[in-house]
């Protein structure tokens, strides 16, 4: 659906119309995702052979609990940030380029949804390229000239990542003669002991790690987020890295199988320390940033670390925590970026010093930011708490006390960087008292608060998120035995 909408946007050449179309497409995708998830939950895995060719030869779409869940996240975030984007984008980028933005947005969404839905590894690569190329465009559309450098950096890093993935896929094809994930998972054990498969594994993980901004391969991310238009930052924060984490899960558990990934390759031994160092390094970096958007970028790197910690515990609880955080973090980061978008709309900057005193002038916006921030810290009744709860529980299950303690300590770092913003916004006099700042318009505030309410709602009623994450984790781990 978004794939269809993309070119039409280009043709329409009109900012408002292309926006309308993109939004409709997103919402339709969201409802489709919802139905899919519902069907998967009640009937089990759905497969669809694209072009009518049966599985091993044709491209197969395969939907189980986990990717139905990720589909829901991706399309949901897009659906809710687009209404926000209209006003925000009109302010932030050149009006004549707006239609390009929505075109790229649709292509990006197509790519992300495609990566998630497909059951074919080469197809993953194709969609990954679609998503990446369109996201370079999205970032570079910002008025800020530095966004070009940021986009270029992302382009270089992204291409390296994609190349690694392609090499990995090619190696796998050489060894097994198939590209279908299910076939791969059956054939790999037979050839698992060869150096080629191990190389393929390494290439794939490094490539995906780059895309996921896994520490220490995260350098492209803070800049990309900082200079992209706000709505785009929100979209990326909620979706792009999440999809990469999903791929990580997919390759670890489905394609290679946990036995190979963790017993033979021992990747948990590498990932866990890296993720931990990443959490601490990125959180510390976030504390010293003077630009709030870039601060949130670093915070995203840290949060991805949590997901990877969950995954590398290699237990049902750990993977549940990882998947849960995938969903929850998408909600909170999108909410935070969107509320920053409101700030940009009124004061034109997200530098900490420029935000002095905005708490009083924009109570709803900053109120949203505070709630989102608390969620990031993991205060109860928000989604962040639920994530932390499961992550700690998973660590305790392994009797890893130090890990539980480290996770808690790191969330205090989040408290520090969030609170710097709160202090500036509420308890500092504005730098330029003469300037009148008013509350952001309702078209921006309503989507912002929808996201915030989602943060609170899923923090209280966890039956959907926890239930699905648990089933998905069992499914992933179940393929082991």
């Amino acid at each position, binding site marked *: 659906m978004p794939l269809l909408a993309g070119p039409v946007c280009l043709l329409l050449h009109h900012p408002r119309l292309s926006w309308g179309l993109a939004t409709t497409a997103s919402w339709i995708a969201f409802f489709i995702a919802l139905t899919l998830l519902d069907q998967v939950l009640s009937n089990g895995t759905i497969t669809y052979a694209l072009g009518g060719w049966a599985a091993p030869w044709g491209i197969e779409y395969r939907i189980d609990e986990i990717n139905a869940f990720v589909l829901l996240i991706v399309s949901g975030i897009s659906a809710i940030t687009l209404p926000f984007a209209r006003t925000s984008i009109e302010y932030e980028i050149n009006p004549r380029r707006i239609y390009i933005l929505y075109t790229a947005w649709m292509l990006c969404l197509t790519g992300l949804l495609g990566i998630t839905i497909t059951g074919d590894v080469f197809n993953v690569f194709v969609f990954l390229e679609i998503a990446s190329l369109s996201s370079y465009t999205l970032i570079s559309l910002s008025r800020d000239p530095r966004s070009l450098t940021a986009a270029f950096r992302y382009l270089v890093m992204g291409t390296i990542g994609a190349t690694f993935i392609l090499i990995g896929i090619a190696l796998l094809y050489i060894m097994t003669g198939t590209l279908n994930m299910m076939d791969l998972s059956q054939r790999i054990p037979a050839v698992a002991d060869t150096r080629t498969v191990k190389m393929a594994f390494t290439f794939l993980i490094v490539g995906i790690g780059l895309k996921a901004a896994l520490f220490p391969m995260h350098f492209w991310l803070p800049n990309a987020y900082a200079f992209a238009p706000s709505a785009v930052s929100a979209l990326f924060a909620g979706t792009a890295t999440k999809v990469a984490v999903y791929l990580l899960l997919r390759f670890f558990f489905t394609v290679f199988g946990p036995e190979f990934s963790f017993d033979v390759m021992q990747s948990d031994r590498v990932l866990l320390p890296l993720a931990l160092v990443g959490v601490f390094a990125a959180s510390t970096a976030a504390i010293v940033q003077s630009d709030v958007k870039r601060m949130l970028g670093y915070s995203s790197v840290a949060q991805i670390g949590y997901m990877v910690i969950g995954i590398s515990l290699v237990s049902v609880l750990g993977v549940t925590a990882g998947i849960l955080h995938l969903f929850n973090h998408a909600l909170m980061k999108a909410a935070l970026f969107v509320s920053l978008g409101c700030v940009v709309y009124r004061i034109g900057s997200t530098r900490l010093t420029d935000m002095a005193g905005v708490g009083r002038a924009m109570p709803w916006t900053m109120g949203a930011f505070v709630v989102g921030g608390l969620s990031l810290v993991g205060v109860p009744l928000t989604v962040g708490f*639920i994530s932390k709860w499961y992550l700690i529980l998973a660590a*305790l*299950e392994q009797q890893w006390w130090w890990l539980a303690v480290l996770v808690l300590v790191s969330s*205090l770092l989040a408290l*520090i960087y969030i609170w710097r913003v709160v202090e500036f916004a509420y308890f500092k006099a504005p730098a330029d008292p003469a300037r009148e700042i008013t509350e952001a318009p309702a078209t921006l505030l309503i989507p912002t608060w929808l996201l915030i309410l989602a943060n609170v709602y899923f923090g209280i009623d966890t039956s959907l998120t926890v239930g699905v994450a648990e089933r998905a984790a069992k499914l992933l781990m179940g393929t082991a035995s």
Partner: protein
Amino acid sequence: MNPAMAALLAVFLPLLGAVGIVLLDKHPNLRETVTLVTAAALFLVVYSLVPAVYSGHEPAAHLIELVPGLSLALRVEPLGLLFALIASGLWIVTSVYSIGYMRGNDESHQTRFYVCFAVALSATVGVAFAANMLTLFIFYELLTLSTYPLVAHKGTEEARRGGRVYLGLLLSTSIGFLLLAMVWTWYSAGTLDFVKGGILRDKLDPGLLPLLLALYLFGIGKAALMPFHRWLPAAMVAPTPVSALLHAVAVVKAGVFSVVKVTIYIFGTDLLRDTDATTFMMWIAAITLLAASLVAMTKDNLKARLAYSTVSQLAYVTLGAMLVNTTALIGAGMHIATHAFGKITLFFCAGAIYVATHKTEISDMNGLGRAMPITYGAMLIGALSIIGLPPLGGIWSKWYLAIGTLEAGQGIMLAVLLISSLLNVAYLLPIPIYGFFGKSSKQPNAAAINEAPLPIVIALVFTALGCMVLFFYPEPLYGLMALLFEGQ
């Protein structure tokens, strides 16, 4: 009204009040009326629960299930009812006082102030009525967050620094230790419900109990055990009504209340007694008790001295809980009440002096007692009650605590209590004595000093009288606490 509904209402009523206060932002008189009406209604609602609890019921209300097996739920038991009664009752008095104080000082952002106050009260009642550890934790965090704007109220560099210490210490201990302790408990026992007799028996290696206990007690940063007590003196930059109700009653008592609750309902007194798990924390409490008293003696700032005195008095309650016998626990519960009345009186007096003279240092207050006799009279009463002399309420809690130490066979702890009482005399009594008899040397305009505005005086006289009433009628307090241990 059915008691379960009343329990729910008690939590939500202050929130409703907060909404009303926001709506009446532009009409100060109506706004303050809303505060007063809400406070009075809250007290009545809480009070309406008394008969049910006395007759042995524990009204319960289930709100929502967060994670399978873990829900947000309320259950009113005697200890929680006692705490809620004190907090809501003193809220009425403090509201009267606040009106005089905030207007007398022309403070800014008064709407924000009253809103946060109401939210904080809702959180306090939530802590008091929590039916499981998770619910308690949630309201506990809400209490921290809602009081932060009150601490940083003035917005000056000093106030913000105080606010940072406050929030930083309280959130980091609660997330760093308390949350960990909770998840551990949940993992071992499979439940977080408050159950009489505890939930941990045979669930955890007894050797690990002291560690878990330490995590809980340090995690409840609001109980201000050293070395995590620094937030309380830092919070003194807040306007005095905040220090009075929140940092002498609601917030700090929520801390020690949680300590007692964890002792009785999570660990269970029998389990703790059988395993001797409390020794280490008992010593921490004793050290806090004495050290804070000593620090209090060195403070010249009146509110800082009172803050350290609070730290010390809170340690009494923790110590009582760590002695784990019925008498000591009854004493601990009563101390929550008697210290509340004594300390709020002292803070009211400190605020009255500030409004009338803008003085904050004790050494500047010589001779003020002659100009403000009512304030200083109330201060004397409050001080004597905290020291624990008849005819004031403070004696009862200290009495039961002392007997508790003997029952537990901890003679040293008895000595600690007695030494601390002497220290109380040394740092509290000089204030009113110099106030009445000291020479007012450098006060050219001494004649101009009068009593503080009427609402302030009414409030402080009322709480001072409360200290006396508690001496003659400690029965309700004792009765409620004794209910806890019936049938054991």
